[in-house]
């Protein structure tokens, strides 16, 4: 395609749509962001952006909600590729390798210049920084971050004769209590399940929790190797499978990520494992007394971190990069992080967020708000490799195959490991 036809096409398009680009001295930023949990997050983001713009008159931000994490990455990259503006985006924290392979992003270390900025870069919870780091540099800054927490229905605990202030802390307790929480009707049909762990949407993420609880990791930091067929990993999958079969505290087969919250709110399950990002919605909609706790552990406690980081794209001018950094700093500042956390349930990304009046008061009034943070000491990085989409799918498929009884946990994970290994061959 030569320049002339490109020009013609653009001009034609502009005239068709009645659009014209006005030159301006302002810096225009376009940022894509995903949402993977409930509530009207777009309004909250828009509000924060407006706030930023009013404090920084020279910068205009166009924040584009682009669907789930996958869509957001696809859309942002598509925009870059087709020459549309996109200076920064919130994308999956685990996309770092893919983005670096595409040479699309810059390291924050290369952008920060002042001491204050360097300090800011060090102000996040280290656990949240794990996924954003590669080759000793920081490529992603935590924003929309979560861990998996355990939501439980205190009323049901009481009804089952359990102490609502003592949720299960080990795998054994989890299974035992779960059994007590299962309620069946006269003809043996289950009316209320003990627990549900979602296995669509982000099965690998839930699995990351179980493996960490069994003291295993799924991949190396460089994202070039996976450990899906380690005995501890297989054992973790067997435990998950058993919850739905041997212990029967969970429906067998896969459990839908998207409808799980409604199941919990409708009293169909006493416990659910879900992202902290659902906290505010559950709080607003639950008609019963509920609690939030750290996930139970086996050899140790554990949960992967999850969610989205800020990335800044390479293909932008120095002014744009500076403005982008300003925006990222603003969005992750303690005040904004506190506001964001309260509005959504995502965690405050640094300790200072929890020192703000907003979160202090909120945590006091609603202690579950701090559970995700407290769990960070046991947190591990989320599955993140090269060929991330494929590798993730291998693992997801294997988990689903095991949970639905199509394959044994061992066979499924051995297969997945083989597939992942061949996909990653070129990166070693």
């Amino acid at each position, binding site marked *: 395609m030569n320049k002339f036809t490109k020009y013609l096409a653009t001009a034609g398009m502009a005239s068709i749509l009645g659009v014209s680009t006005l030159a301006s001295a302002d810096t225009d930023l376009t940022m894509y962001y995903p949402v993977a949990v409930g509530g009207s997050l777009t309004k909250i983001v828009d509000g924060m952006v407006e706030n930023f713009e009013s404090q920084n008159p020279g910068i205009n931000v166009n924040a584009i909600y682009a669907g789930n994490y996958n869509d957001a990455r696809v859309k942002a990259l598509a925009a870059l590729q087709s020459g549309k503006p996109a200076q920064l985006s919130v994308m999956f924290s685990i996309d770092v390798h893919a983005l670096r392979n595409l040479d699309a992003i810059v390291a924050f270390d290369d952008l920060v210049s002042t001491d204050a900025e360097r300090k800011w870069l060090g102000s996040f919870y280290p656990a949240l920084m794990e996924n954003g780091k590669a080759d000793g540099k920081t490529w992603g800054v935590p924003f929309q971050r979560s861990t998996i927490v355990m939501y439980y229905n205190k009323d049901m605990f009481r009804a089952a004769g359990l102490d609502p202030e003592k949720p299960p802390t080990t795998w054994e307790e989890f299974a035992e209590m779960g059994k007590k929480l299962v309620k069946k009707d006269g003809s043996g049909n289950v009316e209320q399940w003990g627990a549900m762990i979602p296995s669509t949407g982000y099965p690998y993420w839930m699995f990351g929790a179980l493996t960490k609880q069994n003291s295993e990791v799924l991949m190396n930091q460089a994202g070039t190797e996976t450990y899906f067929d380690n005995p501890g990993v297989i054992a973790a999958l067997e435990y998950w499978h058993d919850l739905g079969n041997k212990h029967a505290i969970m429906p067998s087969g896969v*459990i839908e990520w998207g409808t799980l919250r409604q199941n919990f709110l409708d009293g169909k399950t006493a416990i659910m494992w879900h992202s902290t990002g659902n906290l505010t919605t559950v709080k607003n909609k639950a008609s019963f007394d509920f609690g939030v706790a750290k996930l139970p552990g086996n050899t140790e406690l554990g949960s992967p971190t999850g969610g989205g980081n800020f990335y800044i794209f390479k293909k932008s001018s120095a002014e744009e990069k500076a403005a982008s950094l300003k925006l990222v700093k603003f969005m992750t500042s303690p005040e904004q992080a506190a506001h964001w956390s309260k509005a959504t349930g995502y965690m405050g990304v640094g300790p200072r967020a929890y020192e703000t009046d907003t979160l202090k008061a909120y945590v006091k009034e609603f202690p579950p708000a701090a559970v995700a943070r407290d769990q960070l000491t046991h947190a591990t990085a989320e599955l993140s490799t090269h060929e991330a989409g494929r590798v993730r799918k291998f693992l997801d498929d294997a988990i689903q195959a095991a949970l639905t009884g199509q394959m044994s946990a061992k066979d499924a994970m051995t297969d997945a490991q083989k597939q992942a290994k061949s996909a990653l061959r070129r990166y070693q």
Partner: protein
Amino acid sequence: MLKRFNLKAWLLLLPALSLLIAFTHWPTLKSFWRSVTWARSDAAPAKFVGLENYEILLDDPVFWRVIENNFWYALGTVPTSIALAIAMALWVNSKIRFTGLLRLAFFTPTILPMITVANIWLFFYSPNIGLFNQLLALIGITGPNWLGDPDIALSSLMIMTVWKEAGFFMIFYLAALQTLSPELFDAAKVEGASAWRMFRKITFPLLMPTTLFVLINALLNAFKLVDHLFILTKGGPNNASNLLLYYIYETAFSFLDSYYAATLTVVMLVTLAIVALVQMLFIDRRIHYR
């Protein structure tokens, strides 16, 4: 008449042909080319790799799963929607009451976007809280995990597809039925043919051209209709409900591997060519009594 070069005709065809070539023929050829090349990322230049992508394809269990699924999906949805469409057309064309409302009801899914109603079907299919299982619970049956059980996830998708398509195909049958002379049916009645015999011996054979037309359309839809996968299953669990076009989408836009996606596209194109061939063989037979 002597055929000759006709500038006016080609000028009239120019806009259509250039658009068709740009967005149908050229990309078809490009797919074939791309399927024999590979590059590490979209930024790097592609190099010729021969049939390597096809070797990967043959080794790819997901590919075979998807092909198998698509086969069952077509086999499950096409005859069912055709049979239902015929039944619906006969009902709407008959003398029972409220045919206007019946027609309206059957046709409604056609104008509803698949993607938005998929969310409502998600509710129908939800285990525990979903409508189907609530209804089944009323008669004491524990409903299945419609979308979560690999044995029935694909069937659940098929049900929704049939729901979406039957009413659309009904329209074609309705149009065909209305061109048939009512005297034919009077004659058969006088001759003492039972309702079933009348259908089998007269209505169905006379609708054959329509059935062939609908069959081709339904087959094509079986390959192109994947909207509901985005909401209902995303091809899961463990690819139990994954279909070829969805896999192409995933490969191209999730795994960012346009080369492998092109290879899959070629498989799709070949399949469609076979469907076209079948249609051409049948097209002679469809005019069997004219």
